[in-house]
């Protein structure tokens, strides 16, 4: 799976380019989040706006990224959840674990303000 990596005001933005995030490709995202935190990034945003479908492996990869953020004293936020993706977060109650923003701008603004909730 292709993941676009960009920087914006000290935030590393990871954007999966595929419509599906499943057991076939979720390890790529898991690796990209791990590499970012290990390379010293403190603020990582995963922009899910291209992802129309997520399964339990995709959710598991994001949980792994969340754990990396905690162990590196960093911060991981998500944005751009489409309908199916949002419903999977709610079904598995993971919406209570992650910091989720409607769009990229809101997520970036939260980093600028240094917001941490959860």
């Amino acid at each position, binding site marked *: 799976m292709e993941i676009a990596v960009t920087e914006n005001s000290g935030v590393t933005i990871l954007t999966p380019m595929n419509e*599906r995030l*499943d*057991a*076939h490709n979720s390890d790529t995202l898991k690796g990209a989040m791990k590499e970012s935190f290990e390379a010293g990034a403190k603020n990582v945003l995963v922009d899910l706006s291209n992802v129309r*479908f997520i*399964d*339990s*492996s995709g*959710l*598991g*990869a994001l*949980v*792994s990224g*969340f*754990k990396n953020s905690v162990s590196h004293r960093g911060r991981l936020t998500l944005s751009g959840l489409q*309908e*199916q993706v949002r*419903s*999977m977060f709610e*079904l*598995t*109650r*993971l919406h*209570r*674990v992650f910091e989720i923003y409607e769009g990229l701008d809101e997520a970036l603004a939260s980093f600028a303000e240094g917001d941490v909730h959860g």
Partner: protein
Amino acid sequence: MGRNTIELDIKVPNQTRYLSLIGRIGDALARELEEEGGGREVLADQLNVVLTEAMSNAILHAHDDDPDKTVHISLSISDHELCIRVFDQGRGFDLDAVGEPDDEGAREHGRGLFIIRCVMDVVTYRRSKGFNVLEMRKKLR
């Protein structure tokens, strides 16, 4: 077989690259169903995720990701009921041992069967004629 019943029997190599194909077949099938006053978007998403979860469970857990094995899926859908069966030749698992995900602990694994159980009405796993069968049924309204 009823007038509006569709049955599909699919065999694919035991490889995760086919998850997308199987999921999309489920999605397309749900959209073929007639429903008064609206589409079948929710059912399409549900069928997509259930097929993806059941198939990846067979590929990765029952068949230990062995690319030479085959996953067999049968789908039957009528006006009133949807039935999906996924056959594997693995060592099997205890369906009752699979609990609910722990949101506080945020574990990485173990949500697949939970998702299937949330979406489908009846889920069973049994040994039959040399295969394990994960059978998932849902009433359609």
